[in-house]
């Protein structure tokens, strides 16, 4: 066994009394592809940040690189040692050119040769088999292409250890194939890769060994063949848990529907029509860029669809601004929680009541503190939100609790239609279950639910019918009882 | 709790910094060789009262030069002198300072205001409290002051400027005026007198334009250059403020128009020296701004002491041709005509 490239010895980490990592020990050797798996909140991101030097472990933790003890792993130090991280949010520079993004962080000279960068960047992209014009601004690329730029950046820095955090979340399957060849090539040249992903099938195709983390503790590390999917999920979740299907019963009860007729907004989507029956959760899925969020935003009034009507319970409603939508009872939980949903720097109370201020104000239309307090406490209890106090700032809460606050914001607005866009990204499994149960409960109480999600397992388990979108067109409408994950994926790719 | 402690901490720091600055400053940081006159002077004997000298822009050299002279004049008469005013043009600030002086119960306020009427309500309040109000530099409305310590009649003040223009370019030709802040009434009224007097006495002189600069030498330089290009035949640029001639002369020198175009009008002697040396300026006028403040303090002291100052010729030490005109107006008629020959025996 060659000396381990990186060894973590009893690494712990806690943030103001919340213990996030509890005495992690594992090591990786050059030329190995190690999958790091675990649910959200299991401590994967923190481990990555400690290896990359962005965070420091609590005292007592030791990091060995090529066998020697690293006293203080700072960001600069880890970059010099050849650690390169592809973060989930890509952490690139939208205002710089592609060439610069690839080179950033590992330039040697003080003076910068933009054209030498261009040449080097194009060379790396060629070796990746990707052709992107390196003089373009990064913000002009699609998210998928940006992901490839992040990968090229890691390769350019001749990293010995590359950590990939959810690298395929925005890639098409052809691009995923490409990534796997690159990983294979890197492996042969002795580069060690730590691969983090939720997609178990990917892990079994690319990883040599797996380390499982759960609730901040190291559970088990072993070669790939000592695992199968069943055992892995059991280790990850620690209890028998499969997506409990929440399919509805006697759908279409009194026949009233929420229907959308040939909605069009070039270049995002064109003549999309669907209707949601009573007590039904209607799913919409498809790859990134299929136009799902843009469709939802035009229904909700953020964007102006060029044509199409909306009918709710039979009568036509016209929405030109988000306020009209909310008055008519149409609510939308946005996809990008950080910039479109959360009101950072404001209290949990203000985030909860922001959509229905009239509801918490007294006769003189002045907001009354007690009413707000009552409303917030009601939802904290109903959705079991864990938070220090209702007056604390929203950014102090964990991802799952933040999402629950946003959901309670829309419940407080008395929705007749609730469109949720990727409701469970970055949310721990427990909260995911609760959100699914809540959606089904709302549907049963007469709220028309539209679930937009690219997580096929979730779409299959929760929605009754699924509209598959591809490049802005309605590819197919599928009954979830009879469909399987493979058939839906196939439709969203080939159409 | 930590919050409240931090606020108290802030106050302690604050108190210490006040204490440091109210004591006559000992061992301050490097003080250049400027005569360090502390604000409030305590003459040996019992002081006869306090005279405040307030000006509307204390950072302008026009007023700053007069500070030590005004304080000394007050001391000689046995008064404490408070020399203050707003650093930059700030009318609300100026009025607050006047109100605070009233509350302090000063005996007299000598005031140079930016315009004739904005301070009148405050000065009337002072007069009701028995405080003597003497306006200087720009006279304010008569009901708002006990006396105007002036140099000469405003109309006549325009005359030396025109004389300086005629001395530079003769009785024909185009000339431009470069003035200061546009809302300063002392400047605006003087421009009117200049143009009236010029039309009356020298019809050959033609005013082509009036341009503004906010007492910023760079802006004055640029304005002068623009005038030179916009009006190729202009013969002279008359400065309506004491800081204008310096930059105007530089502009004329750099445009290579020495001898063709002349800087003239108001200027403090030191600023005119380079221009006179290079020939860009052959005549400038001004008055002794420091002496003007001394004149105001003298009048104020006389008013406090009830010295009788009949209409007509007055004999006041240091002011040979002082005179009182009806309407509580006092002039001391001392203007200077600077020429390349006599410029060097002035230094302010």
């Amino acid at each position, binding site marked *: 066994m060659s000396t381990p490239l990186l060894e973590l010895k009893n690494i712990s980490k806690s943030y103001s009394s919340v213990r996030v990592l509890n005495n992690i020990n594992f090591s990786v050797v050059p030329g190995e592809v190690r999958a790091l798996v675990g649910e959200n909140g299991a*401590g994967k991101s923190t481990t990555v940040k400690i290896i990359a030097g962005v965070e420091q472990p609590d005292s007592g933790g030791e990091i060995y690189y090529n066998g020697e003890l690293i006293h203080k792993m700072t960001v600069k130090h880890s970059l010099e040692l050849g650690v390169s991280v592809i973060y989930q949010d890509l952490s690139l520079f939208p205002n710089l050119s592609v060439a610069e993004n690839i080179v950033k962080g590992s330039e040697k000279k003080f003076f910068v040769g933009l054209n030498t960068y261009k040449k080097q960047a194009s060379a790396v992209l060629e070796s990746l088999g990707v052709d992107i014009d390196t003089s373009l601004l990064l913000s002009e690329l699609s998210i998928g292409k940006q992901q490839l730029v992040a990968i090229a950046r890691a390769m350019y820095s001749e990293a010995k250890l590359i950590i990939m955090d959810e690298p395929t979340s925005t890639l098409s399957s052809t691009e995923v194939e490409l990534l796997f060849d690159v990983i294979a090539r890197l492996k042969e040249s002795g580069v060690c890769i730590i691969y983090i992903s939720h997609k178990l099938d990917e892990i079994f195709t690319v990883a040599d060994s797996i380390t499982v983390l759960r609730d901040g503790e190291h559970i088990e590390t072993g070669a790939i063949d000592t695992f199968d999917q069943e055992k892995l999920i059991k280790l990850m979740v620690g209890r028998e848990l499969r997506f409990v299907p929440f399919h509805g019963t006697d759908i279409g009860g009194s026949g009233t529907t929420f229907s959308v007729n040939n909605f069009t907004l070039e270049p995002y989507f064109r003549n999309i029509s669907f209707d949601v029956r009573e007590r039904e959760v209607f799913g919409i899925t498809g790859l990134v860029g299929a136009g799902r969020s843009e469709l939802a935003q035009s229904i909700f009034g953020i964007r102006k669809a060029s044509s199409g009507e909306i009918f709710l319970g039979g009568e036509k409603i016209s929405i030109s601004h988000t306020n009209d939508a909310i008055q008519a009872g149409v609510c939308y939980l946005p996809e990008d929680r*950080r910039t479109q949903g959360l009101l*950072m720097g404001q209290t949990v109370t203000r985030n909860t009541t922001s959509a229905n201020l009239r509801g918490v104000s007294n006769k003189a239309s002045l907001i009354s503190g007690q009413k707000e307090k009552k409303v917030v406490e009601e939802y904290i209890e109903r959705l079991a939100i864990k938070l220090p106090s209702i007056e604390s700032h929203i950014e102090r809460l964990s991802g799952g609790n933040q999402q629950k606050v946003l959901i309670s914001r829309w419940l407080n607005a008395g929705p007749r239609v609730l469109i949720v866009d990727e409701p469970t990204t970055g949310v721990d499994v427990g909260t995911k279950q609760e959100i699914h149960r809540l959606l089904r409960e709302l549907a049963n109480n007469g709220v028309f639910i539209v679930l937009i999600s690219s997580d096929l397992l979730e779409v299959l388990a929760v929605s009754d019918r699924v509209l598959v979108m591809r490049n802005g067109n309605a590819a197919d409408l599928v009954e979830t009882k009879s469909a399987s994950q493979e058939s839906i994926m196939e439709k969203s790719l080939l159409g | 709790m930590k919050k409240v402690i931090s606020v108290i901490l802030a106050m302690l720091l604050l108190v210490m910094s006040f204490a440091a600055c109210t004591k006559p400053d000992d061992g301050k940081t490097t003080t250049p060789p400027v005569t360090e006159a502390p604000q409030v002077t305590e003459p040996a004997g019992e002081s006869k009262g306090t005279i405040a000298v307030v000006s509307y822009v204390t950072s302008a050299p026009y*007023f700053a030069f007069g500070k030590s002279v005004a304080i000394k004049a007050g001391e000689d008469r046995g008064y404490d002198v408070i020399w203050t005013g707003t650093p930059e043009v700030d009318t609300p600030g100026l009025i607050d300072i006047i109100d605070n002086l009233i509350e302090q119960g000063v005996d007299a306020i000598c005031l140079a205001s930016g315009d004739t009427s904005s301070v009148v309500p405050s000065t009337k309040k002072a007069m009701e409290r028995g405080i003597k109000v003497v306006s200087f530099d720009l006279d304010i409305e008569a009901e708002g002051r006990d006396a105007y310590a002036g140099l000469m009649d405003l109309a006549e003040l325009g005359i030396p400027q025109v004389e300086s223009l005629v001395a530079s370019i003769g009785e024909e030709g185009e000339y431009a005026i470069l003035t200061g802040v546009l809302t300063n009434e002392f400047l605006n009224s003087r421009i009117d007198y200049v143009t009236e007097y010029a039309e009356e006495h020298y019809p050959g002189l033609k005013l082509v334009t009036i*341009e503004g600069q906010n007492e910023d030498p*760079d802006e004055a330089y*640029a304005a002068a250059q623009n005038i030179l290009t916009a009006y190729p035949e202009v013969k002279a640029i008359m400065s309506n403020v004491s800081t204008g001639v310096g930059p105007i002369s*530089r502009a004329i020198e750099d*445009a290579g128009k020495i001898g063709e175009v002349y800087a003239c009008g108001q200027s403090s002697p030191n*600023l005119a020296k380079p221009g006179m040396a290079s020939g860009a300026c052959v005549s400038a006028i001004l008055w002794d701004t420091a002496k003007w403040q001394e004149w105001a303090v003298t009048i104020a002291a006389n008013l406090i002491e009830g010295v009788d100052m009949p209409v007509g010729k007055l004999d006041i030490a240091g002011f040979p041709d002082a005179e009182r005109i009806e309407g509580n107006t006092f002039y001391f008629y001392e203007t200077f005509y600077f020429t390349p020959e006599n410029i060097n025996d002035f230094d302010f």
Partner: protein
Amino acid sequence: MTKLIKYKKREMILVLVLLLASFIIYSISPQFVSSVNIINVFNNNALLGIMSLGMMMVIVTGNIDVSVGASFAVCNMVVAAYANNTGGKNPFVAVLIGMLVGAALGAVNGIFVTLLRIPAIVVTLGTMNIFRGILYFITEGRWIEGLTGPFLGFANRRVLNIPFAVYMWIAVIVITYILLYRTRLGRNVLASGGNKEAARRAGIEPNASTLTAFIYLGILTGLAASLSASKLGIAQPSNGLGYEMTLIAAAVIGGTLFSGGTASIFGTFLGMLLLGIIDNGLVLARVPLYWQDLVTGLIIILAVASSAFQSFSKVRSRRKTIKIEGDPACQD
């Protein structure tokens, strides 16, 4: 060519506005296009032009400096005092001293912003009063005049009929271009302005970029102040009043965004030129004195409104996610 048009749309609109304004002025007074006047316009805006590039660097890091007028006055007086005492013998040393003092004042701002983590506009609001107050207190409003020797007027010495100050402006434009586009330091400033968290993860210390930007603005202010003292032979403590607003206007009209990350040297140059042409044009076009402020205001609004139309399509959301380091919320 298409990339240039698409990418530099804002600057194109600015050029159009400039040409329009020039044409109007030209039609009223033909001397506007005379070589003398054009050189005058450049010469009179060279000092502010030099400083506007420094202000652009500060705004790129997502900060603002309103104490630049006060720093200008301090450097102006210090340089003039030195030149006065040494008879203006060595202008080079005088300019160096000006730049050092400017750098020191810039460093003070930079340290306060990075260390105390207070918004830059508030820090510089405080230092503006402190610098100006101390300068007034020490100089008590006295000015320094009658500078002599080689120091006097070297800023106006003309080579090929172009004043030295204009060459300095061009030199600073080139230096800023190299600094921003050709050195790692400049790229890091742009990077940390664009995505602060990503910059930290790439080993770039965002605070270092902020400090660099403030010191660079300080150096340029010192340079401009020394040129002013040499050009006029006078220095007074109430110099530089209101400079900060003009500099911010020039940089932002040119396309530098307050949210940081985007900057345009050519745009800032055009912004300054536009403001310069307005001042010059008002005199040449014989606009009566009292109408000048009104015309200036209208032109600024028109220039800004037209470039706002151009970026109407992009919904520019101000990403103001307040990130608290090492907080459980950032775990997901």
